[in-house]
C-alpha cells in the first residue's frame, strides 16, 4: 500500500511527462554537486522503495589506451579494482557485500569504466565507505596482477566463440588508423597475453585516471540528497585531484572506401557490417540526433529494409543499424546475418541503397514522428527501477557528466526535420568514409 501511494503521488506525473514532446524526457529531479577536489555527485531520489543503486563512473575506457601494446588496460583495471586495499582485503570486501545482499559488478566500454552496486537502503553508508577506500587506496602485488590477467584472458576466451566479436575487431581495425577506437575494449589478444608483465604500467594507469576529476558518483533510489552529500563528503572528500590529461590521437579523414574479410574457422552463417565515419556525440549540433533517427528509420523492425530482407524475402535473419554515442568520432554501422552465402551481394546492395535513399528522397514527416514517439516511449519504459535509472544516467555521464544532456538530446530529436535527415545523410554516407567487413564460415 505504501508503495502504491508513493508512486501515485510522484512517479506518475513524472513518467507521464516523459511522453509529451514539450516536456523533459528525464523525469526525475536530481541534485548535482561538485566537490572541491573535482568529484561530482549526482543524487536521484526515486519512488522505488528500500533499494538504492550506486554507479561510480570513471571517464576512462579503451579510448584512453593511447600507448601501443596497452590495449585492454582500462578493462584489466576494472578487474584489478576488486583486488582490495590494506583495510579491506578482497575477502573482507566481499564478505561485507555478501552480508549486505548487494548485487555488485562493473563494466568497461570505449569511453567509461563503471562500478555498480545495488542494495538495501540501510547499507548506503557502508557501501560508500567501501567504495571510497578502494578508489583511494587500491593495493595489489605483481603476483595478483598476474593472476587477474588470466581471468581477463578467460573472458577473452569466453567471448572468442562468437563470430560477431571477431567481426567487430576487424571492423575497427580496418576503419580506423589513429583513433584508439581502432581496438576493442577487450583489446588485442597479444596485448591481453602480455598483461601479466605490465605491473608498473598498471600502477601508472591507476594514478592517471582513478582521480576525482575523472569520477562521477550516481546514487539513485530511496535516498535524500543532503544525507548522501554529507556521506560522500565524509568518505571521498580527501581524495586528491590528479593532473594527467590524455592526448587522444585524432583520426585523420578517410580517403577512400575500405573493406576486409574474415574467414571464420568453423561453420557459421555469413555476417556483414557496413560502416560510415560519423562525428562524436553532441547535444548541441543536430547531426547526431538526425543519425540516431536514421538508425530507426532505416534499420529497425519497422523499416522498409527490415520488412523486405527479414520478413518478406527472408534473406537475412538479423539486421540492426545505428550509431552508438561516443566521446570521439566513431561509426554508424548496419549489420546483417545472411542466411545463404549466395545472397551476400544482394544484401550488401540493399543496405547501400538504404543509405543512399536518405540522400535522394525526403523521409515523410509521419514516419519521422513515429520514430520520435518510439524513442520517448522506449526511454520512459526503460526507467522502471532505480538500477536502470542510475545505469542510464551513467551512460550519458561518460559523455557530458550530467543527466541534463539526456533532456538536451531529446529536445534535439524533436527539432529534426526531414530536410535535416537528408542533409546529414549527404554529409556522412559518402563512399570515402565507408568500410565494409564480411565474415564467412568454413564449408560444411
Amino acid at each position, binding site marked *: 500500500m505504501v508503495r502504491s501511494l508513493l508512486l501515485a503521488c510522484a512517479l506518475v506525473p513524472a513518467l507521464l511527462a516523459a511522453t509529451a514532446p514539450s516536456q523533459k524526457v528525464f523525469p526525475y529531479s536530481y541534485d548535482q554537486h561538485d566537490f572541491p577536489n573535482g568529484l561530482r555527485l549526482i543524487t536521484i531520489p526515486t519512488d522505488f522503495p528500500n533499494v538504492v543503486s550506486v554507479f561510480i563512473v570513471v571517464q576512462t575506457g579503451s579510448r584512453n589506451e593511447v600507448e601501443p601494446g596497452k590495449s585492454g588496460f582500462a578493462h584489466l583495471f576494472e578487474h584489478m579494482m576488486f583486488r582490495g586495499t590494506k583495510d579491506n582485503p578482497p*575477502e573482507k570486501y566481499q564478505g561485507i557485500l555478501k*552480508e549486505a*545482499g548487494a*548485487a555488485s559488478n562493473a563494466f568497461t566500454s570505449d569511453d567509461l569504466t563503471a562500478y555498480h552496486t545495488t542494495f538495501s537502503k540501510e547499507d548506503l553508508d557502508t557501501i560508500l565507505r567501501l567504495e571510497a577506500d578502494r578508489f583511494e587506496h587500491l593495493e595489489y602485488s605483481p603476483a595478483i596482477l598476474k593472476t587477474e590477467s588470466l581471468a581477463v584472458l578467460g*573472458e577473452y576466451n569466453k567471448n572468442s*566463440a562468437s563470430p560477431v566479436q571477431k567481426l567487430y575487431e576487424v571492423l575497427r581495425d580496418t576503419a580506423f588508423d589513429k583513433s584508439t577506437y581502432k581496438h576493442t575494449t577487450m583489446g588485442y589478444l597479444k596485448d591481453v597475453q602480455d598483461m601479466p608483465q605490465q605491473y608498473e604500467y598498471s600502477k601508472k594507469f591507476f594514478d592517471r585516471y582513478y582521480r576525482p576529476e575523472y569520477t562521477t558518483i550516481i546514487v539513485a533510489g530511496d535516498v535524500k540528497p543532503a544525507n548522501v552529500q554529507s556521506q560522500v563528503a565524509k568518505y571521498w572528500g580527501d581524495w586528491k585531484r590528479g593532473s594527467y590529461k590524455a592526448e587522444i590521437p585524432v583520426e585523420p579523414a578517410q580517403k577512400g572506401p575500405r573493406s576486409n574479410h574474415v574467414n571464420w574457422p568453423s*561453420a557459421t552463417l555469413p555476417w556483414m557490417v557496413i560502416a560510415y565515419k560519423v562525428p562524436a556525440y553532441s547535444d548541441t549540433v543536430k547531426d547526431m540526433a538526425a543519425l540516431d533517427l536514421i538508425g530507426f528509420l532505416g534499420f529497425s523492425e519497422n523499416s522498409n529494409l527490415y520488412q523486405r530482407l527479414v520478413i518478406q524475402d527472408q534473406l537475412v535473419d538479423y539486421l540492426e543499424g545505428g550509431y552508438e554515442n561516443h566521446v570521439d568520432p566513431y561509426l554508424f554501422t548496419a549489420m546483417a546475418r545472411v542466411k545463404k552465402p549466395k545472397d551476400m551481394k544482394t544484401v550488401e546492395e540493399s543496405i547501400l541503397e538504404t543509405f543512399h535513399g536518405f540522400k535522394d528522397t525526403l523521409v515523410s514527416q509521419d514516419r519521422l514522428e513515429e520514430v520520435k514517439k518510439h524513442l520517448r516511449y522506449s526511454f520512459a519504459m526503460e526507467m522502471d527501477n532505480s538500477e536502470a535509472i542510475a545505469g542510464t544516467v551513467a551512460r550519458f555521464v561518460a559523455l557530458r557528466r550530467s543527466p541534463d544532456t539526456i533532456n538536451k538530446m531529446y529536445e534535439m530529436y524533436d527539432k529534426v526535420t526531414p530536410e535535416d535527415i537528408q542533409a546529414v545523410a549527404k554529409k556522412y554516407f559518402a563512399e570515402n568514409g565507408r568500410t565494409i567487413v564480411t565474415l564467412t564460415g568454413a564449408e560444411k
Partner: protein
Amino acid sequence: MRALAVLLLSVAGLAFAADEPAVVTLPNSNPIVTFRFVFRTGAAADPKSKEGAAALTAAMLSEGGTKELTYKQVIEKMFPMAASVNSQVDKEMTTFSGSTHRDNLEAYYKVFRSMVLDPGWRPEDFERVRQDAINYLKVSLRGSNDEELGKEVLYDQIYQGTRYGHENVGTISALEKMTIADLQAFYKTHYTQRNLIIGLAGGFPVGFADRVKKDFEGKMAVGVKEDLEPLDVKKIEGRQVTMVEKQTRSVAYSIGFPIDVRRGDPDFLALLVTEAYLGQHRNSTGLLYQRMRELRGLNYGDYVYIEYFPQGMYRFEPAPNLGRISQIFQIWIRPVEPPTAEFALRLAMFELDKLVNKGLDEESFERTRSFLQKYTNLLMKTNDAELGYLIDSKYYGIPDYRSYVQNGLAKLTLADVNRAIKKHLQTENLDIVVVAQGCEALKKKLVNGEPSPMTYNSPKPEEVMAEDKTVASYPLKIKEDNVKIVPVDEVFQ
C-alpha cells in the same frame, strides 16, 4: 487492498483446480502496464518426433501475424508504442510478455489479445520462424556460445529418453519436417483455459483484469489436465562424460545430476544456501569463483545452480516462469585454457567433494543466509519480475517468493543445510559435458588418471601450493567406456 488479495490467493494455491483461466494481478500506480500470460505447457508436451512444436507455436504467435493483421502490420502498430510481445518456452511453461505505457493500453492490448487468441498461421511466417529455430540450434548454439552449448547438452544427457530430453527449441530433424498443421494441433490441445495464467502488473484501470479474463474465457478449449507425472530420469552410473568436439580456443565444462528438490520442498532453501555459498552467477563472493578464478586465475568465473538458468552469458539473474517438476544441480565452469583443463575439472570436483563431506561452517552459513535474505529483494526490482515470481509461486504452490525465502531462511539452521547437502549432493554419479577442440587427447588424459600438476605465472601462497598437490592427483574416476565424443554438428540433431 488488491495486492493483499492476490497474496492470499496465491497462498491458497487456487490456480490449478479451476477450468477457467487463473488471474494474478499486481496493481499499482506505475504508468507502465506489464502483461505476463503463462500457459502451463511447453517443450515437455512436444509430441514424439515433433520436438520443437511448443517453441514454434509460441514463435508463430509472438513473431507472426494474426488473422486480421500481417506480421508487418503488427510491427507497424507496435513500433510507435515502443512495445512488443515476447515469448519464452520452457519445459512446462510458455510465457507471452510485454509492457506498454498506460497511454497506449487499449491499442496494445487489442494487438496482444489477437496475437494470442487469433494467430494468422501464414506459411511465410511459418517458414521464417522455423528457419530461425533451425539456425538458432545449428549456428548460434553450436557455433557461437560454448558455455550455453555445454549447459544445454548437459540437460539433454541427463533427461535423455524423457519428455525433458531435448532442447526447448527442438531438434533439427524434427523442425525440418514440422508443418503448420502440427503447430495448429499443438495450439488447440495445449493453449487452453485450464492452462492459462493471466498476469497483469502496473497501472491498469479498475475492471481491466476482469475484462481481460472475460475476453479469454470461452475463446479456447477448457482443456484437460496436463501430464505432470514424475519423470523417469535414468540413474547415472559413475562419472559419465560427453565431449563435444568443435573448433574453439578453450575448454568449457558443465557438470550436473538431477535433484529431487524444487521450490516448496522442505530442502529447497537449504540447497539455495548451498548454491549461494558455492557461487551464484556473476556473484564474486562464491566459493568456486574465489578458489578457481580469484586465487588461481583459471577462468572468468565458476558458478552453481539448483534451477534452470538459460542465457547466463547475458543475464545477471534467471528469468521467471521457468518452473519445472524436475531440476538438476549444476556446476558451470567458464572456459579454461587447454593446458589447465584437467586441473580445473579436478579442482571443481575436489571442492564439491569437500562440501559434501564437510558441509558449511557456522560463519559461512550465517553470512550466506544474510546475503540471501537481502538479495531476494533485488530479484523483485521490476514490476515485471515481481509478477513473474508471483506466477511461479502459484505454479509451485508456495507463498510469494520473497516471503517464502525470507521467512524460511529465518527458521533454517546450519544442521538443516548440512543434512540436505548429504542427502541430495554427491560426486560419484554425474554427467560431465566438455566442449573442446582435440577431445581425443583430452579424453586420454582424463581417463588415465595421471596427476595434472598446475603451474602459475606468479608465486602462490603455501596453502594453495599444498592444496594443488592434492588436487593434481584427485581421482577423476572416469572410465574409458563412460566417455563419448560427439562432433558438434551431431548435437541437437
